[in-house]
């Protein structure tokens, strides 16, 4: 029984270190290779020893696919390819390929330089790892090998994020990575065609949330920033994820442009600045507005937003600072929960005097979005990853209820096995088809018709050809299979007369068959030969020799049973 097996090494009932093993029709694919933000020990990387205990990963895995450049989807890649050892192809989209090494390098710096970790991957390893990458375009079908093909779909979320369809023969799996079903200021919405995969592996970060319209949120944000700046204040916006920084930049930039504002906006140098270069390059991946504006100018070439120079720090005047990266610590959480006095290390007490606003600019699909995507793709079953167990439970129930498909939510290391019934395409030879067509009308759905032919399996493809052609192609001689049966008849008359009687009898019974009486005394019905002979011992008994080929088995056996019943008494 063919089956699809899915084992999450990470992101199973969890957010972080996305890594899912899929084996489909004998092909093994690893989807994403991320790290976990919450751990600093071995647990931060997926347990690759699960894949194979001994032997090289390259032999076992056919390819690795990275959905987008966030570290929880690609953070373990250099470790996996260089330190564990994998030499096979790694597929990702062009923007991901461009931006991924920047993030990895940044991550390495923080881990090694700041935290002083040893035994971490080096810059060189990142470079070596990126050499194994094969970049793909949207909607481009890439043949990994003869049977395995992958295809990327637009996923929104961040620049270059893609959903991947993995297809072997007629079996397919779609992996969404992270995606966003509502467009934002710089990216469009995820889209997939009705590809009807056997399995859809989807993220479920916001499985229990239905979000409000983004317009309200944006307006609120802009109003707050605008008011604060107008009052002469400074606004600090810590942006956690790369991509969101650009989103806010675009949002503020267009607003500044529209409203003719002059207050400077800065973003922190380093990561965001580097990434911005690539954002300028990959305009085709952005949304309608930015693509259309590109005719006049590149919207990522900001007019009002500049990289932050430390020398500005003492400058008076309003200022909006947008750091690209900031580790979410407990302080932030405390402030957000309304604490006004913070105890710092060393018993220092800090009073929070600033005004804190909370806003969510998440780029994940909400429950409705996930359902919408499931509706678009029409999968046979769904598998949830990248979310919390409790929330998944809810969504699972909803999916099963509304789409009536199976839904799975395996934990890390747990394997889900899905039986599939792959359809096997069989090519039919034109000659055979034409011959069949000539015999009658087109086949009707309600009245199936039998078609005789020979199935040839050669070079892993199937062909249905006429038997003559098959014989010719395979260079075989035709074997005739003949059945012969003796029927004893009690008939004292001569053989010829018996034959005539048989003939007239059959003629009367088998009206729609061709019954002939040959000059040599034998009778034929179609191709069945009947000969009458006198019994050697008993002259009163005649022996009817019935002989037919395999093809006429039906008629032959019918004829035998008919003759066995005996001939009707002559009228005389």
């Amino acid at each position: 029984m063919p089956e699809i097996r899915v084992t999450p090494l990470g992101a199973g009932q969890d957010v972080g270190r996305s890594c899912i093993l899929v084996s489909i029709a004998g092909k093994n694919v690893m989807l994403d290779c991320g790290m976990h933000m919450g751990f600093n020990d071995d647990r931060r990387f997926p347990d690759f020893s699960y894949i194979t205990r001994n032997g090289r990963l390259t032999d076992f895995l056919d390819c690795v696919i990275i959905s987008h450049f966030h570290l929880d989807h690609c953070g373990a890649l250099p470790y996996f390819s260089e330190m564990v050892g994998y030499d096979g192809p790694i597929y990702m989209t062009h923007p991901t390929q461009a931006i991924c090494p920047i993030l990895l390098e940044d991550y390495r710096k923080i881990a090694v330089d700041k935290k002083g970790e040893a035994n971490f991957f080096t810059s060189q390893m990142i470079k070596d790892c990126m050499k194994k990458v094969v970049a793909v375009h949207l909607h481009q079908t890439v043949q990994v090998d003869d049977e395995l093909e992958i295809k990327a779909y637009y996923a929104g979320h961040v620049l270059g994020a893609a959903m991947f369809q993995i297809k072997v023969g007629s079996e397919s799996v779609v992996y969404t990575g992270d995606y966003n079903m509502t467009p934002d200021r710089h990216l469009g919405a995820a889209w997939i065609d009705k590809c009807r995969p056997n399995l859809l592996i989807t993220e479920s970060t916001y499985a229990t949330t239905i979000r409000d319209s983004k317009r309200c949120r944006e307006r609120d944000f802009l109003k707050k920033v605008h008011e604060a700046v107008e009052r002469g204040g400074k606004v600090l916006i810590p942006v956690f994820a790369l991509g969101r920084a650009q989103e806010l930049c675009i949002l503020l930039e267009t607003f500044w442009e529209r409203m003719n504002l002059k207050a400077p906006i800065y973003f922190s140098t380093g990561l965001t600045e580097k990434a911005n270069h690539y954002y300028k390059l990959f305009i085709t991946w952005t949304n309608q507005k930015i693509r259309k504006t590109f005719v006049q100018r590149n919207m990522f070439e900001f007019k009002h937003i500049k990289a932050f120079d430390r020398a500005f720090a003492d400058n008076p005047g309003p200022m909006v600072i947008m750091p690209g990266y900031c580790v979410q610590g407990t302080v932030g959480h405390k402030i957000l929960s309304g604490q006004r006095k913070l105890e710092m290390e060393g018993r220092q007490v800090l009073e929070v005097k600033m005004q804190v606003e909370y806003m969510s600019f998440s780029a994940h699909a909400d429950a409705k979005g996930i359902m919408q995507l499931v509706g678009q793709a029409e999968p046979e079953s769904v598998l949830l990853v990248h979310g919390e167990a409790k929330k998944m439970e809810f969504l699972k129930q909803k999916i099963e209820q509304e789409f009536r498909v199976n839904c799975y939510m395996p934990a890390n290391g747990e394997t889900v096995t899905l039986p599939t019934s792959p359809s096997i395409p069989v090519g039919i030879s034109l000659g055979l088809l034409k011959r069949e067509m000539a015999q009658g009308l087109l086949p009707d759905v309600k009245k199936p018709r039998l078609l005789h032919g020979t199935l040839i399996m050669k070079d892993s493809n199937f062909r249905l050809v006429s038997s003559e052609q098959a014989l010719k192609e395979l260079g075989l001689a035709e074997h005739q299979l003949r059945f012969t049966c003796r029927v004893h008849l009690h008939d004292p008359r001569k053989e010829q007369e018996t034959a005539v009687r048989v003939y007239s009898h059959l003629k009367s019974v088998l009206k729609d068959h061709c019954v002939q009486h040959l000059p040599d005394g034998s009778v034929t019905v179609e191709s069945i030969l009947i000969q009458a002979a006198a019994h050697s011992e008993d002259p009163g008994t005649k022996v009817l020799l019935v002989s037919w080929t395999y093809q006429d088995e039906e008629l032959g056996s019918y004829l035998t049973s008919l003759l066995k019943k005996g001939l009707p008494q002559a009228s005389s």
Partner: protein
Amino acid sequence: MFSSSPKACTDAEGRLFIDRPGTYFGPILDYLRSERLPTHHILEVYREAQFYEIKPLVKLLEDMPQIFGEQVARKQFLLRVPGYSENLELMVHLARAEAVAARSSAVLVCAVRSEEDAALCADALRILEGEKRSVVKFGPWKAAPQVKDLLDCVKMDIEARGYQQQQEEIATKKLRLTKPSKSAALHIDLCKATSPADALQYLLQFARKPVEAESVEGVVRILLEHYYKENDPSVRLKIASLLGLLSKTAGFSPDCIMDDAINILQNEKSHQVLAQLLDTLLAIGTKLPENQAIQIRLVDVACKHLTDTSHGVRNKCLQLLGNLGSLEKSVTKDGEGLAVRDVQKIIGDYFSDQDPRVRTAAIKAMLQLHERGLKLHQAIYNQACKLLSDDYEQVRSAAVQLIWVVSQLYPESIVPIPSSNEEIRLVDDAFGKICHMVSDGSWVVRVQAAKLLGSMEQVSSHFLEQTLDKKLMSDLRRKRTAHERAKELYSSGEFSSGRKWGDDAPKEEIDTGAVNLIESGACGAFVHGLEDEMYEVRIAAVEALCMLAQSSPSFAEKCLDFLVDMFNDEIEEVRLQSIHTMRKISNNITLREDQLDTVLAVLEDSSRDIREALHELLCCTNVSTKEGIHLALVELLKNLTKYPTDRDSIWKCLKFLGSRHPTLVLPLVPELLSTHPFFDTAEPDMDDPAYIAVLVLIFNAAKTCPTMPALFSDHTFRHYAYLRDSLSHLVPALRLPGRKLVSSAVSPSIAPHEDPSHQFLQQSLERVYSLQHLDPQGTQELLEFTIRDLQRLGELQSELAGVADFSATYLRCQLLLIKALQEKLWNVAAPLYLKQSDLASAAAKQIMEETYKMEFMYSGVENKQVVIIHHMRLQAKALQLIVTARTTRGVDPLFGMCEKFLQEVDFFQRCFIADLPHLQDSFVDKLLDLMPRLMTSKPVEVVKILQTMLRQSTFLHLPLPEQIHKASATIIEPAGESDNPLRFTSGLVVALDVDATLEHVQDPQSTVKVQVLYPDGQAQMIHPKPADFRNPGPGRHRLITQVYLSHTAWTEPCQVEVRLLLAYNSNSRIPKSPWIEGGEVSPQVETSIEGTIPFSKSVKVYIMPKPARR
């Protein structure tokens, strides 16, 4: 040359003698020395070079355009015209023979381009020869040049022989008359075609020209005949399509070819041709809508081919069914039950066809049936619903339409909800389904769905309101939307404090079972539609919101928040659309303060269109509180300081805001005017636009709030008086205590009295026309009076201004003409001196100008007025001619002028031939009577005749058009008030913003120009971009553009003048004479005169180009 030529001979001393003039030997020598080609006298040099046989030079010269076109190419062409030179000889010969008797002779030249034409004109030639007319026939030839080119060649060659010749294009006309029907030509063509490609070429050529109705049938027969013989499917395809085209010919009844078409349909094998034939049948069927029998027959044919394997054929069959499927059931009752099939069922069966194109066609056919008035069955609804989940977007898109149609047909029927026992109204169900399509994968479908939502008016209100509610939740807890929160904040009084956070924390836990994630009816459709990725979808959603809100006030209230949110869209078009939408529904709504706040925030937008749209929105908005008014005022003033150009728009906005909310403004007055109960406050600056804005608001509010003036301080009254005068359109008349009400014409009460003034106008014009036999002096005086009266009338009655001005202008022309003719000087026989004729020629010039103004500056001028205007112009031209004749010595220049004038008369006659009977006894009438005489007589005589005629000619009665408006323009910006010169570096450009309103200008994009006059007399004309014109209302336009000025350095700042011009082209108005066929350009092109009329006051701008610093 010297080797063999007999051209050279030697003299006694053995020197070579070449018998050639040496004039052009220089260039030849030049070429031989340095291979330089001559630049002048190329033809002559070419001849020389030919003589000397300098082959390379000949070759080079031949390649030069002057010679190539004239000599080489022409010769090449003429060589291909068989017997050209012989024919030419013949022509000259014939002409000479005839000329022996008379001084001139006429030879008919018949030029035929192609064999086909030759065949056609054979008969005509025979007739002509029978009449003993001398005819020379050229052609046919096989080369690209046309008949005209040949005639040109003939003309040139005849002239080269020294004969004068006049060309008349009679031959072509005659030929046209005797041209046989098209069918014959086609027959010849198709018989000649040897290959399918050839035949196809012929057919293509044939299709280019229309066919007369009477010959259609013949052509069709030939086509069909060929069709049967043709083996090539592409030719058959073309024939089939031609049949379809031909059957559409007006005046031809195609029922006679239907049998044949059906006949060939049965034997056709090619699917493409089949499809085309069905298309032809469709054309035939639609041509005969009332013929039931044919329709039934065609439907039968369509049904038979529905099982075809090709999608194209099935498509066409369905189209046929949709267009021709029988509508009435009456035929069934007559007992022909079998004949009429259930078209709907047949089409419905193809909803599940395997080809998406056929499915689409089936749905379209069904929609077509609906459009033709057939009531669709309700059963179709379920079928259509299934199609909503089709794989192909065209199918889904069409299915959405079908569902909409059915929902409009059966809004009230009840349908069950699947998987439950409940039932709902069909229109609600359909609404839910279409709402669901707003989140479809294809944006085409989304646009379609969003558009249709707007027109579903019978939907229950709770369904409607669901579209705005997404049923938010966060972590399985019910969450309120930001809009709800804003509302709550507002009601709790904490609005806009901004000092609260965590208020969006989700509240109560919700039951997991109750949450419905998809298929939940209309839930949140607009929320999705409004944040769609494609702006097309967003615009469609905004439009739909607008339509629904207009029909349901409660929905309008609800959708307000969402519309306000759209003001922040990233695409300007969407923002503008949502502002307009809001304006349209603003009667139904009152803005809450927080909503107003959001609306007002957009006032800072840098796009002028957005701001102005917003001002207009504010004009008709209802505000609920006095804080709201205050907020609006503050924001508007802020806007004013940021964008001073918005001044007028803001004032206007405040005017309406004030008059709509007098009671809300009242408590604000002391604060706004900063008056104090006990102390006098400083008098504000009267020139401050912000202060004026405040006053506009207050005065308009005070109009309906009599208690308000009590709060005014003294200077406010003074300012009122000032503003009432200077900005009367913004400040209404107030009933102020202790002051007389300035009873400035309260317009509504005057309205019934409009008649007398109109009567007055009529009477005064009548008087002028009737008293034309008065003595000259009297006439002049009367005219002067009337003109003055009319002008005054125009000033007083704005609605009659157009008519009054128009007639006044006409009378002025008349007056000028009379005055000019009164000059004593005419009696002097001797030629006049230039000085003496000043008045007359100036008058002529002015009349011309005025006539152009009359023709082009007024909207609503009809043909009968145009005739009179042109007539007047003709008179002016005559006057000009006379004046010139009398002032110039010598006759030569007169020849041209006379000719031109006569041409114009001719042109006039041709253009206005239909109106000539109305011009009895006029100048032109008489002129035309004498036309033959004028043609032959000498200029001096012509002038004489003209002079007497001008004096004798009578006044023409100018019929007044129904509606006539004078085009006018006011330049708002630049205002020309600034004393500070605009400084810029000379040689570089400076941009000057121009903002003007145009009234009653037709097609301003092409006619309105901006002119800049520099002090040194330089004038520059600027064509504004079409996008610079906006159309705020009927008959009104607005021009907002930038004019780039540049000049060399001046020493002192100087003023340049900016004004608007109306460009005209006299050809545009002239009605096409019926006999001039389209495509042929009338020969009088040269009479089209282009010019400009200034139609706005010019504004002076102070500029100062400084020399560039080195």
